[in-house]
């Protein structure tokens, strides 16, 4: 549905536009132009790199920056220790990168005015299923590789819980198989929909504010002001959601890795 004249289109913010490069930049039929999505991925990566590089000082008495970084690594370390056990230590780099990348992406995508005034809109690339789907497939691939590497074909016993009656095995196997195969889908879907829904909500509320002000002072007072106050509240909620979704992604990945490492 195209936006009608003078209305705010809540889906416009998710449009991917090439910044430089054009439709002619193709590899095997796929466009590789540098888009706003790619730009914000690069910004998230650089910001994360600066954050980690600045904190890796290894001082005996950590400063504020090092403390911040170490609390994040310690948090991921505890998460894996609790969910996977001793074998979880070797996944700390992956889960840490995953968690921090998603967290930075979610938070950078929420930056409001200052950059928008300069004509550069913060783009939440985690609100695209292509991005979260690839992250989810990465996690799922690690689970598959680790599972089959460590347990060979015995990995299939993951689909048959202990003590299943013999007659029930084919049925339980199919159910467990489907619930296993749907994991990357639900993992990517959760993050992308949560981010997208929040941004649509903010955009819809902002359209209330703008349309209310355009309609005159009375409407501005009874429509725009409450909407604006609600927007501030929703922004705070979105910061919470950004953290929770990054945490849930890391948590579920570590649970799936636990399945691959320890079976049931």
């Amino acid at each position: 549905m195209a936006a009608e004249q003078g209305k705010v289109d809540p889906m416009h913010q998710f449009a991917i536009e090439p910044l430089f490069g054009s439709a002619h930049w193709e590899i095997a039929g796929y466009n590789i132009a540098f888009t706003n999505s790619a730009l914000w991925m690069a910004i998230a990566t650089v910001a994360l790199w600066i954050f980690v590089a600045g904190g890796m000082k290894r001082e005996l008495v950590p400063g504020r920056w090092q403390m911040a970084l170490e609390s994040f690594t310690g948090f991921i370390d505890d998460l894996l220790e609790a969910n996977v056990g001793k074998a979880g230590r070797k996944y700390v780099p992956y889960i840490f990168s995953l968690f921090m990348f998603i967290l930075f992406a979610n938070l950078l995508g929420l930056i409001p005015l200052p950059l928008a005034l300069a004509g550069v809109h913060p783009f939440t690339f985690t609100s695209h299923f292509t991005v979260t789907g690839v992250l989810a497939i990465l996690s799922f691939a690690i689970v598959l590789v680790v599972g089959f590497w460590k347990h060979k074909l015995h990995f299939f016993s993951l689909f048959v819980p202990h003590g299943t009656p013999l007659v029930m095995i084919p049925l339980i196997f199919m159910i467990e198989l489907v619930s296993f195969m749907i994991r990357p889908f639900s993992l990517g879907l959760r993050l992308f929909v949560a981010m997208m829904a929040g941004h649509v909500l903010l955009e819809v509320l902002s359209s209330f504010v703008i349309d209310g002000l355009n309609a005159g002072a009375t409407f501005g007072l009874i429509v725009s002001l409450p909407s604006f106050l609600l927007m501030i509240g929703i922004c705070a909620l979105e910061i919470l959601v950004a953290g929770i979704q990054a945490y849930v992604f890391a948590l579920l990945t570590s649970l799936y890795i636990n399945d691959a490492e320890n079976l049931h």
Partner: protein
Amino acid sequence: MDPQAAKLIGAGLAAIGAGLAAIGVGNVFGSFLESALRNPGAADGQQGRLFIGFAAAELLGLLSFVVAMILIFVA
């Protein structure tokens, strides 16, 4: 009925799912808080399970959002 109208009504009905998921998510955190206040010592150890429950309840609500989006933009 006009197909476009039917789509939009369907998308609106999908919002019921979001409301039901709100009950689910509220139930997860409410039950956690209730039992955490009874036994604060054991609360921290259950935070992982809290968020697994939250993620499961939330996903089903988000699916209703996906249904609405598909009805409006894809179907």
